[in-house]
């Protein structure tokens, strides 16, 4: 459905570009010419960085999210408080300022603490994406875990399991079915937000498009292709998410 709508839209754009008015110049990314072929290769080479960046950031975000979410569900308010503060605080910071802070500010902070760390664009982007996203993954974990009936925890307690055993053997295996689909959705968000890494010089899809625009002066065509690149990536992921949801749903009804 969505795919068809988009293909029609794209076809219209293409046709518009082929008219004689000359407002479109598809030649910049025409693979039949040498220049166009090189340009396309240059742009598509950004996929690797975008995907790698997103995957590492997503994995880190899942880990941080769990570490933040677990104390957030404690009965002890002093354990709950830091988790709550972290989530509210991180959620309130827009991604771009946080990216600048991590990339330009964090090395200075670390240096003043005696740690000489050089944060490059790749890790700067990963840290920022992971932290910014972890507030959302933490909330996903929380709602997933809290959706499991309280009786499960009680039963685990009466057979003597301690907190971490209860989580590991009883609660998380059940909660994972409700957590995975929204987590996978969150991955789409990370992929899109990874475009911000371009502003600190990370050579991913958006950065490459920007650089090519500067040399070719063809923003319309190049950015159109850029959008399509993200579209393809996200559609592939959401296809995977859909399948995952169906599989989880089938398990649930069993």
């Amino acid at each position, binding site marked *: 459905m969505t795919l068809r709508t988009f293909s029609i839209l794209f076809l219209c754009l293409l046709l518009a570009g082929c008219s004689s008015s000359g407002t479109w110049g598809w030649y910049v990314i025409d693979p039949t010419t040498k220049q166009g072929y090189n340009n396309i290769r240059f742009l598509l080479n950004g996929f690797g960085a975008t995907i790698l960046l997103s995957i590492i950031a997503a994995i880190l975000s899942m880990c941080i999210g769990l570490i933040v979410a677990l104390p957030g569900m404690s009965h002890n308010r002093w354990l709950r408080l830091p988790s709550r503060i972290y989530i509210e605080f991180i959620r309130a910071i827009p991604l771009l300022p946080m990216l600048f802070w991590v990339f330009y500010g964090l090395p200075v902070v670390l240096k003043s603490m005696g740690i000489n760390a050089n944060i490059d664009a790749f890790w700067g982007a990963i840290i920022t994406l992971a932290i910014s996203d972890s507030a959302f993954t933490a909330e996903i974990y929380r709602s997933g875990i809290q959706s499991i*009936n309280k*009786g*499960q925890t*009680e*039963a*685990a*307690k*009466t*057979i*003597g*399991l301690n907190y971490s*055993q209860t989580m590991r*053997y*009883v609660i998380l*295996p*059940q909660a994972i079915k409700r957590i995975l689909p929204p987590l996978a959705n969150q991955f789409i968000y990370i992929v899109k937000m990874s475009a911000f890494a371009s502003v600190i010089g990370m050579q991913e899809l958006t950065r490459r498009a920007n650089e090519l625009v500067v040399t070719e002066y063809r923003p319309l065509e190049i950015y159109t292709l850029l959008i399509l690149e993200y579209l393809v990536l996200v559609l592939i992921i959401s296809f995977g998410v859909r399948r995952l949801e169906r599989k989880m749903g089938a398990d649930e009804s*069993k």
Partner: protein
Amino acid sequence: MAKAIEIKRLNKWFGSYQALKDIDLNVSHGERIVICGPSGSGKSTLIRCINSLEHHDSGQITVDDIELDQNKESIAAIGAEVGMVFQQFNLFPHLSVLKNLTLGPIKVRGLSRSEAEERAMRILERVQIPEQAHKQPSELSGGQQQRVAIARSLCMEPKIMLFDEPTSALDPEMIAEVLDVIVDLAEDGMTMIVVTHEMGFARRAADRMVFMDKGEIIEMGAPKDFFEAPKTKRCKTFLNQILQH
């Protein structure tokens, strides 16, 4: 000889609502107690305090000479002696029947897988469903699920069993099979406290009846006296209501 359970002046509040008022109750080893009373009378809360699923606000609970306070050691020590069966079974739905039974013995008691499975099968024989060992809980009937839940508790070899309305969530035709298992345990000398409305079962298995209302123990006595000559009006009214049906 020390009592299995000693409860002294136990009080429990939920916010401003007092769920338990000055409860005193002693249970001897091997004694079978049935607690009955209208809903909201604090029966479940009382037994949930014994295995610290609820924390009491004042008073004293001693199980086998271990006093229950809020520190982890006493909770764990008492938890190791007390098994519990819930109204809603609370089986682990993602694990097979056998795995439900072996989880505690393996992870808590440190048994090997084969030892734990051997014990689990022996107990499944006892509750008469060894053939269900490899099924998922959702494939079983309610009565079978509750028998698995009882078996899961027994696998931890508790000295005391608590039953919180074990048949209230069951279809009528399945109540007997669960009660039979509990009676079998009772005849074997297990110390138990059963919260239930099944008065036939109470007559058959109880050494002592406890009637609770509004957070207090109103009446206590041998089943014969309790059913034939209740002393208080509240207890009479209650018995009339449930025995009519």
